[in-house]
């Protein structure tokens, strides 16, 4: 009987092995499936005219890009400036609005849905001429009424009965708008409450995307749906691509809009691609795997998805350096160790703050924190016109003088009466622990006994409002000097600012910025502000900005890499596939 059982057991083992083999074969078949993700897409016949013969080879193909998550907040750029929104929105709605930041120079203003614009003598009234021939994806002409609707919605919100849509609190241009008037289909007049000489620049910020067709949204608002979003009205935009299908959590497929208004420098109609499939890849490891096996042509932008040195090397090892293009883009988040000077602590003493500024080895911090993918900065990218010229060669930032700086730092600390160091609380957002810990290490070496407090966002926000910390890690994203307003002004003027002080002179810089009439004037003010904030008063020790690395395959051409800010140039109108 025992043998009988064992013999039957052997038969069961054979069946088991056979089943397992079949399962393995099924998986191998899956692995060798015919859906070759790298297969070249069929050439498109759309978009080519006789005058475009030379460029015809650029047309066609579907690119496969990654997006880190489904766009939040109804895909509405008015509700969220996150890269998660812009990554796909850019292709549907274009970047910017009536005007936009120039693709190759974020500080310059370029035409967009408006082809010309002008201000009156005192910059209190701006007139925009709407470009001819622009249509929404449903064929409806884009008019000045649409421009008015967009600015009004951002500035004043909307109210229907008890339902209230609140004005946009983050966009700087809305603060000055008094009223808008569409004098005819092609002319929009914007009256301001006061003179704003750089209104066009404030309006041009790329993430202020016009994704709001009046003819579709106004009826919704009138019906009480005041928070109507682009998603609610079918993603009808004026961008180079129109929505074909969207499967939440999976893929958004956008396809060429044949009536897109922009052309390339040779006059060829854009976009070149037939379409883009944006795959939602919520895990960076999954995204990297898909890129390395050819299922993706480009990786996603955004925190957590940008490449680390290890991941970048792994991709290059798999595909070869000549098969990929690494896109290096500034984050425009300027990390700073912000000090609270309102509390009665040693940090109230300027000498102590100067000592910390001199002591911190920023180059080492970039290496330790970001694996070298970063750049030492002050309040701005040192290569922009907003930054003090040569600031990076001065004590504190200059690696060559670090030994002398550190000696000076020790001396300053002793002069302030803290030769034996002191204790300080360092509040740090929990997610930023990897940024704060190396700083703690350096501060401890200076003799400061740091109590690192990793806190959640609610606690951090609450303690920021109450000025309840000694030091706070700040990582503000800033494209224009005016955007620093709520981030570094005095506590009375802006309770959410990270450096805590009661210095009216700082608030004065922002008032001056608002009334400055030229870029040169604003540049001079921003330089003066940087010198004052970061060097003279050291309200914060500005450290560095992270460099965002993302990768595209070698055959993806025409990507306009936004060196200054990774949230820009996301319309992909000029992208084409050379394969």
């Amino acid at each position, binding site marked *: 009987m025992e043998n*009988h059982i064992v013999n039957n057991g052997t038969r*069961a083992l054979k*069946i088991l092995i056979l089943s397992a083999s079949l399962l393995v074969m099924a998986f191998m078949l899956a692995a060798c499936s015919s859906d070759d993700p790298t297969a070249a897409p069929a050439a498109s016949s759309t978009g080519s005219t006789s005058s475009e013969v030379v460029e015809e080879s650029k047309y066609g193909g579907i690119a496969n890009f990654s997006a880190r998550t489904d766009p939040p907040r109804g895909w509405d750029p008015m509700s969220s400036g996150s890269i998660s929104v812009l990554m796909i929105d850019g292709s549907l709605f274009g970047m910017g609005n009536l005007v936009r930041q120039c693709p190759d120079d974020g500080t310059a203003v370029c035409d967009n849905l408006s082809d010309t614009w002008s201000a009156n003598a005192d910059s209190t009234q701006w007139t925009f001429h709407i470009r001819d021939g622009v249509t929404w994806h449903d064929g409806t002409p884009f008019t000045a009424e649409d421009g008015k609707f967009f600015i009004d919605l951002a500035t004043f919100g909307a109210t229907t009965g008890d339902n209230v849509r609140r004005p946009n609190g983050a966009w700087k241009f809305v603060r000055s708008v008094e009223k808008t008037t569409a004098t005819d289909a092609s002319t929009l007049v914007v009256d301001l409450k006061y003179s704003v000489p750089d209104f066009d620049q404030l309006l041009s910020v790329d993430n202020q995307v016009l994704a709001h067709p009046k003819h579709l949204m106004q009826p919704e608002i009138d019906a009480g749906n005041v928070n109507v979003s682009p998603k609610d009205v079918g993603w009808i935009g004026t961008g180079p691509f129109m929505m074909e299908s969207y499967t939440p959590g999976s893929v958004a497929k956008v396809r060429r809009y044949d009536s897109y208004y922009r052309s390339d420098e040779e006059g060829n109609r854009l976009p070149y691609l037939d379409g883009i499939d944006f795959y939602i890849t919520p895990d960076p490891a999954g995204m990297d795997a898909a890129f390395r096996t050819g299922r993706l042509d480009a990786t996603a932008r955004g925190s957590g998805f940008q490449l680390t040195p290890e991941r970048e090397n792994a991709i290059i090892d798999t595909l070869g350096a000549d098969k990929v293009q690494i896109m290096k883009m500034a984050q425009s988040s300027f990390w700073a160790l912000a000090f609270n000077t309102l509390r009665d602590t040693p940090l109230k003493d300027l000498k102590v703050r100067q000592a910390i500024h001199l002591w911190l080895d920023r180059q080492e911090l970039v290496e330790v924190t970001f694996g070298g993918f970063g750049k030492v900065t002050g309040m701005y990218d040192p290569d922009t016109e907003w930054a003090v010229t040569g600031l990076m060669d001065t004590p504190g930032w200059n690696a060559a003088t670090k030994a002398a700086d550190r000696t000076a730092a020790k001396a300053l600390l002793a002069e302030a009466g803290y030769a034996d160091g002191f204790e300080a609380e360092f509040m740090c957002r929990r997610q930023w622990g990897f940024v704060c810990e190396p700083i703690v290490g350096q501060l401890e070496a200076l003799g400061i006994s740091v109590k690192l407090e990793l806190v959640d966002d609610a606690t951090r926000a609450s303690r920021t409002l109450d000025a309840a910390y000694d030091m706070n890690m700040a990582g503000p994203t800033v494209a224009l000097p005016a955007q620093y307003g709520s981030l570094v002004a005095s506590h009375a003027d802006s309770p959410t600012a990270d450096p805590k002080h009661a210095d009216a002179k700082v608030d004065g810089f922002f008032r001056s910025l608002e009334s400055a009439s030229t870029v040169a004037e604003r540049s001079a003010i921003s330089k003066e502000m940087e010198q004052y904030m970061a060097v003279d008063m050291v309200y914060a020790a500005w450290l560095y900005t992270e460099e965002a690395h993302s990768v595209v395959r070698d055959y993806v051409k025409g990507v306009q890499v936004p060196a200054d800010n990774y949230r820009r140039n996301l319309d992909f109108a000029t992208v084409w596939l050379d394969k």
Partner: protein
Amino acid sequence: MQKYIARRVILFFPTLILASVLIFGILRILPGDVALAILGQESAEGGGGFTEAQIHNLREDLGLNDPLPVQYGKWVWSMLNGEFGGTSIRTNEDLDDIIGRRLPVTLQLALYTIVLSMVIAIPMGVFSALYQDKWPDYVLRITAILGQSMPNFWIALLLLLFMVTIVGWSPPLGYVNIWVDPWQHIQIVIWPALILAWRFSAYVTRVTRSGMLEVLAQDYVRTAKAKGLSQRLVIQRHSMPNALIPVITLGGLEVSTLLGGTVILENIFGIPGVGQGLVEAATGRDFPVVQSLAMMLVFFMLALNLLIDIAYSYVDPRVRYS
């Protein structure tokens, strides 16, 4: 029996209410104000500053200015009337749409896992018992222990790495339902299902093995063998039904671990189920989604346990509830 079932069904509801109070309460006693958390996160991630008015407005929008019992009542009512908690803060999507879209995906994945586990684990457990303390038994037990001890996310990452570096292949992107494109669906779902099944079947294998060993030593099995019954009949008809009774209980309890495992694996493999939704919602401070999805999972767990308890009394005639 009917009385027992009725009592279990009646007990189901207080348990559900208690769970809802806990879920609701935990989200409220977490440190910090939800409105501050949302605005603070946006501010920290580049959204600029915010004002007291914005805090007040957001609290108003989220209903956080209402007393807690009112907030709880509104939430429970919306769960009952089919709105499932209203609207997502993060996506503005109605929660009934989110749950309707995500829940079937997760349940599908769980079903694949359970079927795969049972198909693999029960024969393995039986086989292991038949070959007790021989090399096939050791191999199967080691395999089971590995399945129990290695974290799912780690296996998933190793598997991805293996596929990319050795096979040069990765699962397709873009989840599709099985009725839309069965082949693509299988290529995407099979990997997390296999990983989850490994862990799940590890438990089932070990319990089946223990059960079989115990049953094979029983007098009635010896009697069955002595009667001259074939081994297949002895195992299938006399041993397995009794040996597998604990598997039902254990399987039910392990489903909770299984659903927990989907949270990470759905994210890694890009499967838009409840797990991925929970991760997105939790990182985005989308508390209506978190509490409603958590409540749905609790509901399914309780319902499953109820069914198991009821099924147990049918499967094991010795069990009598009074």
